[in-house]
């Protein structure tokens, strides 16, 4: 043996290396997305100076949509190419799994905060320009009476209030996307079948008998019975939407909690090519 180095579990597990890799890999992707957002915002902001148009700013927000799209892509990449690279050096699967998740969480929360900072910056610029060119730069909400600095303050407070929820959503979806990435790496065809094919199959199997039944009823029913059937369908639909609305945060959280161990088990059992 070499002169034995006293190593912590963290060092032996190579978590530093996994995190360093994720920093290099994710910072480039997140940086590129931020650059695209900044350039597009800058173009939109500068266009009123050249053209006869208005730049409206309606409030500060953290862009959850963009963050989730990037999280989906990054999680699949982390579960695929990055995992392969890290395992090839003889890194343990637990370290790769843990390091990937920590890296993804940090990267995606960073991106979410970045979009909010960009929004704050654009708001401040619009506020400044709205004083000089009020016809070209409008700092106003579609609804509501607040304007200018008051609106900026109010909007920032609201954005900060929703930020913890957005961060939680980002983490939850990242867990689920990472599971998807792990499953895709293990068996792409089966995963795609499960996430696309099975819901479609279920929908078809549910819809076809329902439509047939409705058609049979409609053949013999009078206007009143048809109206009742329509109302009944509408009620089912409304109940379903209400259920999803009320239970969605719980479903999402449960999905994320279940995804964590499943993603580990999935990647643990995937043979390394």
């Amino acid at each position, binding site marked *: 043996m070499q002169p034995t180095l006293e190593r912590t*579990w963290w060092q032996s597990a190579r978590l530093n290396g996994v995190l360093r890799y994720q920093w290099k890999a994710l910072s480039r992707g997140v940086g590129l997305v931020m650059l695209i957002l900044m350039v597009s915002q800058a173009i939109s902001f500068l266009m009123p100076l050249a053209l006869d148009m208005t730049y409206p700013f309606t409030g500060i927000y953290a862009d959850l949509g963009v963050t989730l799209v990037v999280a989906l892509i990054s999680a699949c990449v982390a579960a695929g190419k990055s995992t*392969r690279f890290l395992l*090839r050096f003889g890194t343990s699967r637990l370290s790769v799994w843990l390091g990937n998740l920590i890296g993804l969480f940090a990267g995606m929360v960073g991106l979410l905060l970045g979009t909010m900072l960009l929004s704050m910056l654009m708001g401040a610029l619009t506020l400044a320009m709205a004083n000089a060119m009020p016809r070209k730069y409008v700092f106003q909400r579609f609804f509501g009476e607040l304007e200018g600095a008051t609106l900026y303050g109010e909007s920032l407070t609201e954005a900060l209030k929703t930020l913890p929820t957005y961060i939680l959503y980002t983490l939850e979806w990242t867990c689920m996307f990472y599971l998807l990435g792990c499953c895709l790496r293990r068996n792409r065809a089966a995963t795609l079948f499960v996430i696309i094919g099975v819901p479609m199959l279920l929908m078809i199997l549910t819809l076809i008998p329902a439509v047939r039944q409705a058609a049979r009823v409609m053949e013999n029913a009078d206007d009143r019975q048809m109206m009742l059937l329509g109302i009944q369908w509408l009620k089912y639909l409304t109940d379903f939407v209400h259920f999803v609305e009320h239970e969605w945060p719980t479903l999402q959280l449960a999905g994320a909690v279940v995804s964590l161990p499943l993603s580990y088990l999935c990647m643990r059992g995937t043979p390394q090519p």
Partner: protein
Amino acid sequence: MQKNGEMGAPVADKAILRVNGVSRRFRATQALDALSLSIPVGEIVGLLGRNGAGKSTLLRIVGGMLRPDLGQVTLDGEAVFNRARALGKLCIIGDTPDFGHLAKIGDLFYVCKGLFPAWDEAYARELIGRFELPFNKRMKTFSRGMQTGLMLTVGLASGAELTVFDEPSLGLDAVLRERFYDLLLADRQRIPNRTYLISTHLIDEVARVLDSAVLIDAGHLLCAGTVSELQSGYLSVSGAPDAVRELTGGMVILKEEDAAGSLVRHVKLSDPGDQTRIEADPRVRTAPVGLQRLFVFLTEEKEAERHATNA
């Protein structure tokens, strides 16, 4: 020399790596069949075998990338599969260079510094010069030889207790291959207790750096031992054809070659006293049988045995 079957349990006293009865099957193919071997600490060990012998499967199992169906692999006494502490002592350099999403050598070294606790940055930078690699160029523009050189740099500078190279010379020109072998020997002087396991087809080329070798064929251990142990019992005899024929008559001939009026016979000695008798004869010259020649002979002998059993 240890042969399969004689090696119920690993024999090396100070073994860093022990493979105990490991079997792995891929559908109809039995890649490894109850393979047992041990790799002693501080040696450069060659893992030699034909294509499909099971070398890469064994290395994937050693690297924790694949789980054996049966048996166990331990590194410094700890099972390797998914064990962070055991795997932390290992650096495995595969035969396919892979840099993930990393763009430049600096990025790779930055990651390696975190991956390998004993990473030697200064030595890695020195090796970059020795392998003639451009530090600031993007790695995906590197030729295959350059990529291999970079992976070898990572392996050498990793400082891992056990460093495994799978086909380390793929794509390297002759000069860089020789340079790599010299670096291996120099590194062994630098860190005496560091162990290297090298899987390769180019047996004669790597033979000069090996302390010991493990020969596997069709998922079985053919033999294992130090190079001199493996070579004992075999001899290359050259000289006047009549004298060579006379001295080696009745022995198993591995290979016979005519060379400018003289005859060279690589033979399996049938008696321990044969070597002294032949070496004492002034009409002939003797030399140990090359590892590659020996490997070919042992493989063919094993294949013949298998055919005979099947028939």
